[in-house]
């Protein structure tokens, strides 16, 4: 049975699209047939992060409005046969996303994919609600920072109240996962950043991973190759672990402690 995963956060700029691109790529690397959908109508960006921006012909809104078939709109990833991207439209308004229309598209995708990953826009408006409405599982992307934590808490409230599973009340509620991104063990150790346990305690949902702050994430989006392809990057490795945990494997958290420093550098903080 196909699984619908929403990647959401409330706040913008915390790494939703990056996370979507990497989780989807990671699932495809694990031989799962995966499609990733950009719900950010009017502000298409997943295509850039995935490196397929020049191959967009039709988009999600074209499909919703019957102007193109899914087959025409889906873009196959250059690096994986198992991975497809459904881009957002760049021009049209958000009213194109109707609950019924989105449901139909997802039902059709469920016939041929194992995982459907939905990239939510920021905010708590229609686009964000549509992205999470049909979800079976949710990855809540949070930076260890006050506004991001508060907005994640808001989104958890919306998952619990406005999703299909919440409204119909027949199935289990959406399975929620906390993903902390842009984490800096050094800043946590000097008391400048909320720690993993702080964020977990505040939000009260199980942790699926911690992505350390790393230069390679920006380099990856610069070149349109998700960082999970970069085996040397600690962020890439952290995403690989997230995908493994998603598939039920037990992986210890990595890159969450500060690198050991010499006594002298500790004393003088160099």
């Amino acid at each position, binding site marked *: 049975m196909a699984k619908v995963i929403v990647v959401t956060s409330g706040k913008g700029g915390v790494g939703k699209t990056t996370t979507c691109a990497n989780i989807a790529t990671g699932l495809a690397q694990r031989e799962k047939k995966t499609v990733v959908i950009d719900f950010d109508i009017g502000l298409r960006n997943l295509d850039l992060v995935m490196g397929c921006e020049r191959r967009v012909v039709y988009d999600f809104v074209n499909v919703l409005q019957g102007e193109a078939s899914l087959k025409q709109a889906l873009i196959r990833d250059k690096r994986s046969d198992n991975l497809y991207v459904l881009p957002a439209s760049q021009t049209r308004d958000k009213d194109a996303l109707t609950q019924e229309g989105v449901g139909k598209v997802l039902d059709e995708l469920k016939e041929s994919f194992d995982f459907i990953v939905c990239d939510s826009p920021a905010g708590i408006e229609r686009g964000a609600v549509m992205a999470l409405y049909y979800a079976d599982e949710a990855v809540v992307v949070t930076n260890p920072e*006050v506004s991001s934590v*508060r907005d994640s808490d808001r989104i958890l*409230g919306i998952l619990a109240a406005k999703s299909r599973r919440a409204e119909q009340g027949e199935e289990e509620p959406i399975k929620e996962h906390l993903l902390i991104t842009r984490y800096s063990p050094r800043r*946590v150790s*000097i*008391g*400048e950043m909320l720690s993993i346990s*702080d964020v977990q305690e505040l939000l009260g949902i199980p942790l699926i991973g911690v992505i350390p702050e790393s230069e390679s994430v920006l380099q990856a989006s610069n070149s349109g190759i998700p960082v999970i392809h970069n085996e040397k990057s600690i962020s890439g490795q952290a995403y690989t672990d997230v995908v493994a945990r998603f598939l039920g494997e037990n992986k210890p958290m990595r890159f969450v402690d500060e690198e050991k420093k010499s006594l002298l550098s500790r004393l003088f903080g160099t």
Partner: protein
Amino acid sequence: MSILDYLLRRQKRSAAVAKDRLQIILAREHSDRDGPDYLPAMKRELLEVVSRYVEVDLDKIQVNLDRDGDCEILELNIMLPEGEEPIKHAAAQ
């Protein structure tokens, strides 16, 4: 953290401050979220009425809705400032 930093540090570390602030605001937002739809508006109006007669700090007012079995309890807690004169003109209106 270097020892020099530690010795010079007088303030609470900012991460701890962030956590405290978040704990308070999230608790408040949860109580708004879980309560009935009319609760925020009712709170606001209650506060308006009270502040017409006494000058109170908004932080000194707590409105809680608790459930005890079948019974719902609305609790309004107002800390009145000490030795404060009532706002006469407003009360007279």
